[in-house]
């Protein structure tokens, strides 16, 4: 029977690759939707006509209008831009900052390590979302401040992962061999540590995109993320919840948009993780 195993594994791998490509296409579609929101949107997302408030779906407003008579579909499309790109930006920033600090911390150890790890311990001593609320609230409403607040909180996770991976890789024989061959620290980090740390971190980052979209939306829902005039899914739900009884769609449509986006990114992240595990 054992001769069957490699072929089966190859087939499973092939199937997984196909799903991964499919999900990649979906992610790409999402990104394109976000980028081309200004072209795709049928109406101006912030132009409201008070005479046409709370309308049902029509040819002009495919998803109806909100309490100010603004086109819901257009706001959803523009909201994709805000949600997706702010989350991607945050993830990219914490990924870079966290990995660099974590690798330095793990590789050099000593005082650098102690200081960086103390800072992460202190930051992680706070319940995360509460600190995000406090930071975003104190800095003031605005998408820039939200991004800043979330970055300050989330880089610690990446620093910890990068550090522990670096610590285990550092002890491998090939690193010692590289030292013996006369490579300096910079070369070792660039050629050996980073390529080995990278896969785990990229999977973590991909899996975190969905969570980050929800986090940004949550802060906006609480009225801390973006200014209410800016189209964003969380803040749309916040505005819509007063009309939950009369027009639940104002909450449901942005909610479904968040859900679908998060599902796509989460599935993509999980498939990516499975693929890395297999190889």
């Amino acid at each position, binding site marked *: 029977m054992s001769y069957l195993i490699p072929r089966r594994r190859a087939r499973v791998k092939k199937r997984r690759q196909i799903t991964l490509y499919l999900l990649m296409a979906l992610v790409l579609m999402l990104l394109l939707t976000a980028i081309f929101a200004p072209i795709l949107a049928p109406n101006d997302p912030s132009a409201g006509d008070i005479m046409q408030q709370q309308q049902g779906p029509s040819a002009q407003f495919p998803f109806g209008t909100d309490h100010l008579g603004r086109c819901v579909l257009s706001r959803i499309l523009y909201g994709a831009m805000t949600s997706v790109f702010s989350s991607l930006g945050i993830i990219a920033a914490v990924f870079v900052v966290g990995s660099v600090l974590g690798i330095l911390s793990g590789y050099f150890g000593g005082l650098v390590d102690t200081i960086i790890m*103390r*800072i992460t*311990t*202190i*930051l992680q*001593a*706070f*319940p*995360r*979302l*509460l*600190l*995000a*609320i*406090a*930071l*975003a*609230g*104190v*800095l*003031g409403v605005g998408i820039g401040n939200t991004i800043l607040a979330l970055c300050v909180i989330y880089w610690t996770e990446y620093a910890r992962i990068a550090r522990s991976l670096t610590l285990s890789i550092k002890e491998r024989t090939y690193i010692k061999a590289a030292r013996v061959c006369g490579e300096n620290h910079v070369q070792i980090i660039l050629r050996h540590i980073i390529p080995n740390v990278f896969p785990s971190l990229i999977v973590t980052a991909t899996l975190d995109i*969905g*969570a980050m979209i*929800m986090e940004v*939306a*949550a802060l906006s*829902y*609480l*009225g*801390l993320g973006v200014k209410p005039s800016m189209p964003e899914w*969380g803040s749309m*739900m916040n505005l819509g*919840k007063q009309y*939950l*009884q009369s027009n*639940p769609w104002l*909450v449901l449509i942005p*909610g479904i948009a*968040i*859900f679908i986006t*998060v*599902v796509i990114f*989460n599935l993509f992240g999980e498939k990516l993780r499975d693929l890395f595990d297999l190889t």
Partner: protein
Amino acid sequence: MVKKLIFRILHIAVVLLGVTFLSFTLLHLAPGNPAEKYLAGTDGNYGIVSQEAIREQERKWGLDKPFFVQYFVWLGNACKGDLGNSYSTGHPVVSELFSKVGPTVMLSVAALFVTLLISIPLGVLCALYQDRLLDNIVRGFSFLGISLPSFLTSLLLLYVFGLCLRWINITDPSGFVGMLLPMAVLAFQCTAKFTRQVRAVVLEQMNQEYVRGAVARGVPKSRILFSHVLRNACLPIITWVGLYFGILLGGASIVETIFSWPGIGQLAVESVGRQDYQMIQGIVLWMALLYLAVNFLVDLSYSFLDPRIRVRKGGRLP
């Protein structure tokens, strides 16, 4: 042993100092002068307040002193249980916190309890019957749980149970019935993640050599599961319980706000809305201390649960 203990206490002291410092700095991150803001009130009558009045208020609050002096004065007061007065209501921050911390802790503990009650048996079952029907169903359920934002789940529940079925009174959330929905939302979210983690840990233990050895020796399966696998899986699970408590304390803010549950989270969101920075500072500090205390207890529980740690720390086997 003594050296280790001193090191540990020093570590806690550094963390505490850092936590208090960060909480204190938070207030100073806010744009604008707090004294001027206080005097101008919520209407934002900036420019109307005279410079003398601002200086007077600054002197009263000690804002004219250097930053670090202010910090240590504040820290001294905080140790005495005085976190200042709320900007908006004028009441002492500490008494306000005292009245709100109960409901939040109650909600978090209840949600945590439900989470453990569901996740641990379910996670173990999923590990035992890996890739079978139950495992797949649970996998789908946890995927749903991690992909649904808590405010969406909350609003859906509120809509269905509060507005359509009218089972609960959404304007008055007090008591046990009022707690059910927020608890359900929090527990749903945590269960989704926690079940997976329990499953992973149990699976990891089941693939260890000692399990194979026990099977070979003919040890009954139930015995392997309960006294070997689960005992070893205990430690990571306990660690996560501590972490989840923090997630719940933070995550409760959204759920509390939606269900008008009178806890710290709601107070935090309201205080942010009112720009009551003194209150925010107090809340952040309190929650961090609470979270630290829980994790300290988790740390302590290790040595009770795992004899190996006790031995490593220099003690003898009991």
